């Protein structure tokens, strides 16, 4: 994909343009000094790599360490090694499988909503229309709201069964207001999280759609493809890579959503995700060992999801 298109000035560009390659002599220099340069580069990168590794390895090691211990800070502290007890207890708890299911449902739901709406919004925002600049900023705005704040706003201003905006809408149509967070708890969480992540998806997809060569669409138009087929055969394949990026990045973050659940349902009504379950084990039950074992399960789940995703969409990233 090395085609170059003229970029209108009002484009939202994600990445800065690649730096121009250095002038000819400098490039030649670089060639002859490759080995030397590589060693120097490794040396210079080392501190960052070591820092990152430590950042990752220390908590991971500690989690593994605690997961094999009976560690109850308020009830005796470190009570010694227990082998795989914590692992067995965590999985055999009645809350485990429902929490895995809740995690997958929420992640899947948010992904589906943000990708579908993101594509539609991106197409809409790419149309020349009055006030496009302002609309774009408005669309991106939710991304800047902290998860805790947005969940609270949704809970109290929109979903409150007495004073919420949605309750008023329901009443205006003569319907009984929905007690969102109780009756449709999972859906509510999906709604709130989707609202937060839609801007991200839209933004990435918008930049992708802007790089679509308009002559391709015109060629398809002349070839007799009506708008829906132009979308299916030209626009959507063009977006496949961006959609993949959106799915992968969002999954990483969605597997660990916490604040939205904490300030709304507190894990009740089937919204207890794996992350939330671990939180409860560690902080509410004050059982560090059990929580750590849960953490290891969370890592395993994340990897299983990652493998599946790479199988399904990863090939879009090639070439």
């Amino acid at each position, binding site marked *: 994909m090395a085609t170059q298109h003229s970029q209108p000035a009002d484009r939202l560009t994600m990445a800065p343009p690649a730096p121009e390659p250095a002038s000819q002599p400098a490039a030649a220099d670089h060639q002859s000094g490759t080995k030397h340069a590589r060693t120097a580069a490794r040396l210079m990168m080392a501190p960052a790599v070591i820092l990152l590794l430590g950042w990752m390895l220390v908590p991971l090691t500690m989690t593994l360490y605690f997961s094999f211990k009976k560690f109850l800070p308020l009830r005796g502290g470190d009570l010694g090694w227990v082998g795989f007890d914590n692992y067995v207890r965590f999985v055999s708890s009645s809350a485990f499988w429902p929490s895995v299911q809740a995690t997958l449902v929420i992640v899947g739901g948010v992904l589906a909503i943000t990708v579908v709406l993101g594509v539609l919004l991106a197409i809409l925002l790419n149309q020349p229309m009055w006030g496009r600049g302002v609309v774009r900023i408005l669309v991106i705005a939710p991304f800047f709201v902290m998860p805790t704040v947005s969940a609270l706003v949704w809970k109290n201003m929109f979903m409150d069964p007495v004073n919420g905006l949605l309750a008023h809408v329901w009443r205006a149509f003569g319907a009984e207001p929905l007690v969102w967070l109780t009756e449709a708890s999972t859906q509510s969480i999906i709604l709130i999280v989707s609202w937060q992540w839609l801007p991200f998806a839209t933004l990435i997809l918008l930049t992708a759609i802007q790089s679509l060569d308009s*002559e391709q669409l015109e*060629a398809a138009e002349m070839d*007799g493809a009506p708008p829906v087929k132009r979308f299916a055969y030209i626009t959507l394949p063009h977006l496949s890579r961006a959609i993949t990026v959106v799915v992968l990045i969002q999954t990483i973050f969605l597997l660990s959503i916490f604040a939205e659940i904490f300030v709304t349902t507190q894990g009740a009504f089937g919204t207890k995700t794996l992350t939330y379950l671990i939180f409860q084990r560690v902080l509410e039950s004050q059982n560090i060992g059990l929580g750590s074992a849960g953490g290891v399960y969370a890592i395993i789940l994340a990897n299983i999801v990652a493998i599946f995703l790479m199988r399904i969409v990863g090939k879009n990233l090639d070439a």
Partner: protein
Amino acid sequence: MGRITLDKVSKSFGDVQVIPPLDLTIDDGEFTVFVGPSGCGKSTLLRLIAGLEDVSSGQIRIDKQDATHVPPAKRGLAMVFQSYALYPHMSVRKNIAFPMKMAKVPVEEQNRRIEAAANALNLTDYLDRRPGQLSGGQRQRVAIGRAIVREPSAFLFDEPLSNLDAALRVGMRLEISELHERLETTMIYVTHDQVEAMTMADKIVVLQAGVIEQVGSPLELYHTPRNKFVAGFIGSPKMNFIEGKEAAKHGAHTIGIRPEHIEVSGEAGTWSGVVSVSEHLGSDTFFHVHGTGLAETITVRADGEVGFRHGDRIFMTPRADVIHKFDAEGLRIA
């Protein structure tokens, strides 16, 4: 069939009128070239015919049918874009099949036409590749193949060769000309390169700022350009223009003389000057002559063997029968 008529067609983008009302007829089977400098509205005119832009006023007729508001797909025209506009995620075969798939042509017929087009365009070995794996010339051929299989009533080309290197350009030029001989379908071809126009066209339409300056066969434009613009645009190297006393001798405001219509000699001639640059092409030599007192530079074409060099004083004699005369407005005097 493929007779295209433009009747007082004009186009404005906002307040800017890119194409003032113009009339033009393109006959069935004709190879018509729109030529003009960059930004003169050639692409816009082609896109109006294709239906990719709406006309601001006027009427477009294709085969006597009013097509002004007919959508592009229904006009029966096929277009080859400057960027080729191939579908990057589809194989060559699927690219070529796409218009037929949209038109719901039966699969056997699709395959038959794909094979035929691939044969004609030397694409048989590449049918399963993606456009990204092809060279510029091959992509160009795929784009043409995609146009051919639709069996359109006319082909529209928008500067199809401008992304190719010089050698390939000459080859593709020939191929497109041969294609036209074979299919005998109307072709409209846009280019800013007068050599392409001269070599390929049955009929050349010279445009400047959206205005048709002249329509005619290549030799008509060469021999009897209607004004100074056409005279200067058609022919390479460019025609020499001389004003003042020398022009007055011929009863004109400006006279034009093509470089190939001037005789050079080392001894005697009507005009004289000093060679500033000599370009040796082997078959021909071009001399750029200064200090003639006629114009800043006079360009002369001589035989490849003529060996004057920088600084030599030479004498030049124009052929009297091919001097073009223009009035103060730049229009040709009979």
